[in-house]
């Protein structure tokens, strides 16, 4: 499925939040179209920062990030909306509107990107069906379980039918059963061709999914691809992460 030219490319990407805090300190990485990757690493290692750069929420301080050949360092604020329509973003806190029903949450996002009421009526059911939440279409977010809310958030990320999906800690607040469900949905979307980048702590899910893993530490890539040693360590002692200079 992966084609020759990388879909996502990070070139010595550095992000400095201010003079003292850096989010990333030189990350180089290539992701092919249709790939599924996990960004792993202890807290503060820069997982969310990568997601933020890819979703144009944060600009590279040095180096560059490219999506489909488009440099994100040179993006102007006016260009951001159109770039975002090619990226589905699943925020860690779901970001659902509490006073809107499930279908309205998805519909509202569609209306915001210029779709008509007619389109909302026609397309929302199918989108909800893709993440298996159609039966709860008329519920309000506070009537849903965490896993169900996460599915709505994913559904909303799919409204533009994006070729790339970014999820920050999609299983962060979920119990293992619900986490499985979410990862299955993401795997399913991936099998339909969507490139997926997931930032996570959830070592169980990473292992179970059996996809490419990028291990980050202190804003740098710890080691390429699958690192069994670290996985092993984290599994044995999940609360005591390996130390690193900081």
């Amino acid at each position, binding site marked *: 499925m992966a084609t020759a030219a990388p879909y996502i490319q990070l070139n010595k990407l550095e992000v400095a939040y201010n003079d003292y805090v850096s989010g990333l300190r030189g990350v180089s990485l290539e992701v092919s179209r249709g790939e599924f990757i996990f960004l792993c690493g202890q807290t503060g290692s820069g997982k969310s920062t990568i997601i933020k750069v890819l979703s144009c929420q*944060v600009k590279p301080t040095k180096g560059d990030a490219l999506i489909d050949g488009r440099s994100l360092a040179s993006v102007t604020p006016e260009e951001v*909306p159109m770039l975002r329509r090619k990226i589905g973003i699943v925020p860690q806190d779901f970001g659902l509107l509490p006073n809107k029903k499930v279908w309205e949450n998805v519909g509202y996002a569609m209306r915001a*990107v210029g779709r008509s009421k007619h389109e909302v009526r026609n397309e929302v059911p199918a989108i909800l069906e893709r993440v298996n939440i159609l039966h709860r279409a008329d519920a309000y977010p506070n009537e849903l379980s965490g896993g169900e809310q996460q599915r709505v958030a994913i559904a909303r990320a799919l409204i533009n039918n994006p070729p790339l999906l970014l999820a920050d800690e999609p299983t962060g607040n979920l119990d293992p059963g619900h986490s499985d469900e979410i990862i299955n949905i993401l795997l399913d979307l991936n099998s339909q061709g969507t490139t997926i980048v997931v930032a996570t702590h959830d070592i169980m899910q990473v292992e179970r999914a059996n996809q490419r893993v990028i291990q980050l530490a202190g804003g740098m890539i710890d080691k390429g691809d699958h690192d069994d040693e670290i996985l092993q360590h984290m599994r044995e002692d999940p609360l005591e992460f390996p130390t690193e200079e900081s």
Partner: protein
Amino acid sequence: MFDRLEFLLNEAFVSLRRNKWITFAAITTSAMALFIIGGFAFAYFGLASFAGTQESKFDINVFARTDASPEQVQALGKRLEKLDGVKAVTFRSKAEVWKAFQKENPEISSGLEIENPMPDTFNITFTDLKKAKDIVAYARKMPEVAPKDGVQYMGDVQALIEQVMSAIRWLGLVLGTVMLATGGILIYNTIRLTMVARKKEMRIMELVGATRQTVWTPLMIEGVAEGVMGALLATAVLWIAHSVVAKLLETSLSVVKVGEFPLAVTAIVLCLSGAAYGLVCSYLAIRERPTEELPR
């Protein structure tokens, strides 16, 4: 594109309804600002036109010395007539003036068996008001004219009107500016509050790639709506105030005629100013928002 407009308008009116009281405050303060400015404008232009009607009536009285002979008085009249800028000189003898005074003020003059204290009087009207001052000065120096208060110069009334007008101009400007600033800050604040109240919605919009116009337009509509509603309120209050003042003036000073209230013009001018004002204030509020956290 009606569908699009519906979405944007709906977004705007949801937030207008949501922070009702702040909206109310913003509308009433803008209304007050526009009312004060409009009210002073009315008073100013009203007085200006009143002063204009006074000018055509503007005249002076020149009193002859009481001991001047009839020939001297006649000569004075001739000389006054020849002055540049004089339109007409009418003569009233001391007897006529006294009679008229007695008739007008019977309570003062009746029973008093005194000698006629009135002087022979010339009433002068002008073709050119700008020359009035020179004519007055000239008349004062003439030997036949009474040495003290020989010229009754109505310029004082004129000067008073001008003073009042400049006071109105200043007061209107100062009060209007203060109220405009207050109204503006309130509109600005409403928009800021809306942005806080709708942080979630705005974040979602930005997350899914809504254009800036989509995110901004409802906020601008909200600001404009507040300005326009303030303007409509101000128009209504001005209308009422105008009719009250008109009635008062017409009953107490029967001479003054107050014109019709120009409802359409007032409403249009105020609404346009209110809309422009709301637009500017909401734009300032929106612009101040840091859209993204930008690391260096």
